[in-house]
């Protein structure tokens, strides 16, 4: 479904401009917030396992750090572009702001495909990335985290390189580390659970009970799996999931009307979230085209894969039964599709609110690392629920009070807080 012409940064700017108009921001403030404050582009030369040399391109953007150190993931993706990283860093600024955690927004990436790299080669890229940027990142400057196709092992290699270079133990430099190595309990569950917390609150507002609803979800990675786990525990039924098939280089949807079984699907899934089609068929799943997850007759849709998935072209095919869309991924809905969703009276929970669980828990991890005192899982997840619920209800109250959509409300609330911080510092 991805369109080559799609530019995430253009979309992010469009969203910002619209909010800036409503907030009547002055030109300097708009200028400051429309683009990242800092951008780093660098090369990472490594020796491949066959002895050849290869150079990978890396990025890091700090969109804004007026509210605190920048925070954002590092993506390993073959189609990575600086514009995507810019857009995602901007969304991180809004996300940390709407979640009300004292951090700014950043994002990084490397143009590479980990599927085609050995572990040692991946380690070299991680260490090379840190060597290029270590002067500009750190526990009180800019704190990276895992993102698309990066994992706790990658974070640990990066931390190790950073600590070797700086000569200090600084586990707060990076989050998403393995538990026991500076990682926080509850981190793996956080984003998926967070999405479901916002859905739980939305269901309350719509006077619905989870056990009376069904769901279809795009993606079968970490976010989707934990979202399915919690939603199922609440009594809901997931009937369709989709995932990317590395071999066929396209996505497929897996449907089971009686409800997907998370455990059985996990048993036939590779480390990148790809489900084995043949075995899924044996287990009674219908294998459909990749975009079919979106057109199911369900109450709730969760796009939890990549950006630009619900577009002007496909939005009309969304079932009239759908009542809630919760954006588990960043930027999955285009502004054009957004308007149509609004007209269909679907309750949309915007990305930087719905998937804020990850960054909230990253923040908890950083706090724990800086204190070198680690909390119980009960404590981490209890705080996560509290923060997510508070964030959702703040945005909801704002939206009902001002008759605005959740996305516009979240945007305005988030941007306003960042603007206030910038003004308080005398930047604009």
């Amino acid at each position, binding site marked *: 479904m991805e369109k080559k012409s799609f530019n995430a940064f253009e979309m992010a700017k469009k969203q910002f401009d619209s909010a800036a108009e409503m907030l009547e921001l002055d030109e300097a403030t708009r200028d400051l917030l429309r683009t990242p404050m800092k951008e780093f582009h660098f090369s990472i030369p490594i020796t491949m396992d066959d002895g050849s040399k290869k150079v990978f391109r890396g990025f890091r953007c700090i969109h804004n750090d007026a509210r605190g150190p920048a925070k954002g993931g590092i993506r390993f993706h073959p189609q990575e572009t600086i514009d995507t990283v810019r857009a995602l860093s901007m969304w991180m600024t809004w996300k940390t702001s709407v979640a009300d955690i004292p951090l700014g927004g950043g994002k990084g990436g490397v143009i590479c495909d980990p599927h085609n790299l050995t572990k040692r080669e991946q380690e070299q890229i991680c260490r090379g990335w840190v060597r290029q940027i270590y002067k500009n990142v750190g526990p009180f400057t800019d704190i990276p985290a895992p993102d698309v196709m990066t994992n706790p092992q990658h974070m640990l290699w990066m931390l190790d390189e950073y600590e070797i270079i700086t000569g200090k133990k600084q586990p707060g430099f990076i989050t998403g580390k393995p538990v026991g190595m500076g990682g926080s309990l509850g981190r793996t569950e956080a984003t998926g659970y967070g999405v479901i917390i916002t859905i739980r609150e939305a269901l309350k507002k719509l006077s619905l009970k989870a056990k009376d609803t069904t769901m279809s979800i795009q993606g079968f990675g970490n976010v989707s799996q934990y979202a399915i786990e919690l939603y199922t525990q609440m009594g809901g039924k997931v009937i369709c999931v989709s995932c990317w098939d590395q071999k066929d280089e396209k996505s497929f949807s897996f449907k089971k009307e009686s409800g997907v079984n998370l455990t059985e699907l996990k048993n036939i899934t590779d480390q990148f979230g790809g489900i084995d089609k043949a075995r899924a068929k044996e287990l009674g799943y219908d294998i459909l085209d990749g975009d079919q997850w979106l057109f199911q007759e369900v109450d709730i849709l969760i796009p939890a894969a990549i950006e630009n998935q619900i577009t002007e072209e496909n939005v009309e095919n969304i079932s009239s039964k759908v009542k809630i869309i919760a954006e588990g991924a960043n930027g999955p809905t285009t502004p054009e599709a957004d308007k149509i969703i609004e007209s269909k009276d679907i309750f949309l929970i915007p990305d930087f609110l719905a998937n804020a669980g990850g960054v909230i828990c990253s923040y908890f991890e950083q706090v724990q690392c800086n204190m070198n005192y680690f*909390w119980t899982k009960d404590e981490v997840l209890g705080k996560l*629920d509290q923060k997510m619920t508070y964030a959702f209800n703040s945005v909801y109250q704002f939206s009902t009070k001002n008759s605005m959509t959740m996305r516009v409300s979240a945007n305005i609330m988030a941007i306003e807080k960042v603007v206030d911080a910038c003004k308080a510092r005398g930047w604009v």
Partner: protein
Amino acid sequence: MKINEFNRIFFDDEQNISFIGEGEVGGKASSLIYFDNILKESDFSEFDEIMVNIPNFTVLRTGVFDDFMTQNDLYDIAYSDKSDDEIAIAFQNASLPFSVLGDLRELISKVNVPLAIRSSSMLEDAKYKPFAGIYGTKMIPNNQFDSDTRFTKMVEGIKYVYASTFFKDAKEYFTASGLEIRKEKMAVIIQEIIGNRYGDKFYPNLSGVGKSYNYYPINETLPEEGVVNLAFGLGKTIVDGGLSWIYCPKYPHKKPPFGSVNEMLKLTQTEFWSVNMGDPPAYDPINETEYMLIENIHSAEEDETLSNLVSTYDHTTDRLTIGSGRDGARVLNFAPILSLELIPINDLLIKLMKVCEEKMDSPVEIEFAMTFSKDSSSEKPYRFGLLQVRQMVVNDTDVRLERSELSSNDTIIASEHVLGNGISNNIKDIVFVKHETFDPAKTELIAKEIAEINSKLLSEKRPYLLIGYGRWGSSDHWLGIPVTWSQISGASIIVEASLENMNIEFSQGSHFFHNLTSFKIQYFYLPLRNDFPTDWNWINSLDHVTDLEFVSHVRYDKALKTIVDGKSRSGVIKK
């Protein structure tokens, strides 16, 4: 019966009860919810200075327990024969289901009064199989500045109560009652504790247990006239069978039959329980009394909480003066409220028990706590919190026993202070505490020996007659043998005998006796000067199956015959 889903508002005038999670609320919570409505509908206007209600609480329903057990794979260790501590530690290391954490955090961030974390199991408080006192209750001060710490302590308390579902006492109780532990589910009540803070202590001015039917009527009182136990401080004193003030609500002025003022000084409450609001104690989440203090009542002098409850001993005249106006030893006889009727507590109890009896259509046992406001200008200076209501079992089989039958040739044991009613002839085993080695300082060791024999007889399914000295089930090992219910759960008849050095007026640990009577166990109290001597020679002549240092187990080749006349409260055990 309507209860509200927890909406992250705890102390709301409109919502004093709420629930979290799915499933059932359990027996205890169910009765509290029922009586919350009854209290709201009832007219207590004649007690215009007393606020009568059920303290605010939230119930974590049984679905949360189910999720906790399955998500943490705890059933294997729960059903194993591992020690209580091992089970408790495994439960502490597990995580609560995510779905309730946000609500619990929100609750604790808004509440900073001391909390009681109480069990409310599916089978608890069932009329004929009462699990009263079998499961744990954790009291927490909840006064830490940091809500993270308060949250952690509350979660530890919840896990402790969950773990107590599978402690040895509970398992043996299940075995004795013929119930299947695998069918048990636990809800948890998180409830504000009724009390006031005095320095580093938090406690109610008064706590008590009222029963509308008295299995131990003394003097001229009748079983139907009921009985009330009052204690200063937390109700744990009564529940554990410690010294408390016992009286019949129809005769509140009459004191228990103490031989002298000196005896009254010794046999009235001298220690009281409170919640520790001071420096944190040693970390011990698997200890039920981690945050509880027991102190001498003199330590409450400076709190000025004794004046409505005590009389003062004047050694120059060897007399008691009501109140605490003079210096001297305090006697917790509750005379200011019972004799001078400064606060109409007794009238309130009579009315409340009547209301509860009518609604339950059976005799009832209630637990309550009261505070007397420190603010004299308050419109309702007294608060009465109803903590529990449960039905009592009263056996009404018609048995008539003539006095002459108590002293016939084949009598082994007879008494005119017997609890229970009915005839039985299925016991061949007698377990008794040996007179010659009995030592009040060693009652804890005696309890262990009894437990050992009890386990064996229980596994062989042989009910037995148990004979010992002092108050069974007392938490104070100087007053009797401090057995838990599970340690004597196989006994069908229990005898409480007196010795010169163990001559305690009979009393009852609330939960202990409630369970005892609900299981229809016959209970014989033998006063020091019993008119009917026990035939020790015959008992000692029987075959000794087990002979330990303090306890013996003998067996008769025929069944003993037991006749108990509930109306005359007399009973006899015959060869």
